[in-house]
């Protein structure tokens, strides 16, 4: 793997981690909201 390839590898890995982290955070908030709404039913 050339240094350019490795840099691209790291860049993709990093951006994927950020997206997965963001999606997980979104679902944490969503599940919290669903729980609050369901508890009020």
């Amino acid at each position, binding site marked *: 793997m050339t240094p350019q390839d490795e840099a691209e590898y790291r860049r*993709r890995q990093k*951006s*994927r981690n950020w997206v*997965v982290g963001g999606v997980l955070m979104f679902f944490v908030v*969503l599940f919290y909201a*669903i729980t609050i*709404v*369901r508890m009020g039913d």
Partner: protein
Amino acid sequence: MPTDWRDFFALTKPGVMRLVIFTGLCGLLAAPGSIHPVIGFTAVLCIAIGAGGSAALNQWWEADIDAGMKRTSKRPLPAGRMAREDARNFGILISAASVGIMGLAVGWLAASILAVAIIYYAVVYTIWLKPNTPQNIVIGGGAGAFPPMIGWVAVTGDITMMPILLFAIIFMWTPPHFWALALFVQSDYAKVGIPMMPVVKGEASTRKQILIYSILLVPLAASPWFVGGTGAFYGIIALALSLIFLALSLPVAMRRSQEEDAMKPEKRLFAFSIIYLFALFGVLVIDRIADYQGWPIPGVTA
């Protein structure tokens, strides 16, 4: 090299998803009763994720076919930007997640219909019908017809005549919509051996069937008004839109393509068919909200 996250997003066919989200949301908003905004949002989100999951499974299965067609050759799998099993695993994961979340947060009837819709598209249409019968679009159209029904059931918790009619409208709309597209990309489908109607039965038969479905769509689109599910506001606009649809399908039905044909009537019908569905479901929601809010729109009395 890890797959770029944008390719996973592309795997969900975001363009198709817009129509799925819109019709699902319209089904939810047009249904009698109320739903908490958080639960309603979750229902639409699950419909979108489920559609994305089935689209990913569709592309996993059809990677070889997609590679042979100009329109689809740049998708992540045929372009070699993603491993095939990654697409399969991603599709299964988000499909299962959408059904699970829908069941827990919204209701298990809506979740069951969502599961049926995913299996219908990924298995019945993609694996079974599409490569084997020119009626693939007719029967497979059912997959795209589920979202408004799921949205409706998320609110009401039961299946009544109205969600069945909304299902039937999209079911009847799909063949002329898709065959109009198939007419101007038919050489691509022929190349990869997909038995699309124009390839197997020929252009003349396809054009005739486009007209038949467009005629049937006129009374069907207005049927929610006939059964008292909407007011005349929806009914009259639905009739007008369907008559325009029919008028655009007439030149498609009455012509034959020539060498180097620009296929303008077919492209016009395809473009209008998308506007038609957005407008029809938009009017359905306006009719419902106007009735609920008591807006002074003539004909709004469900």
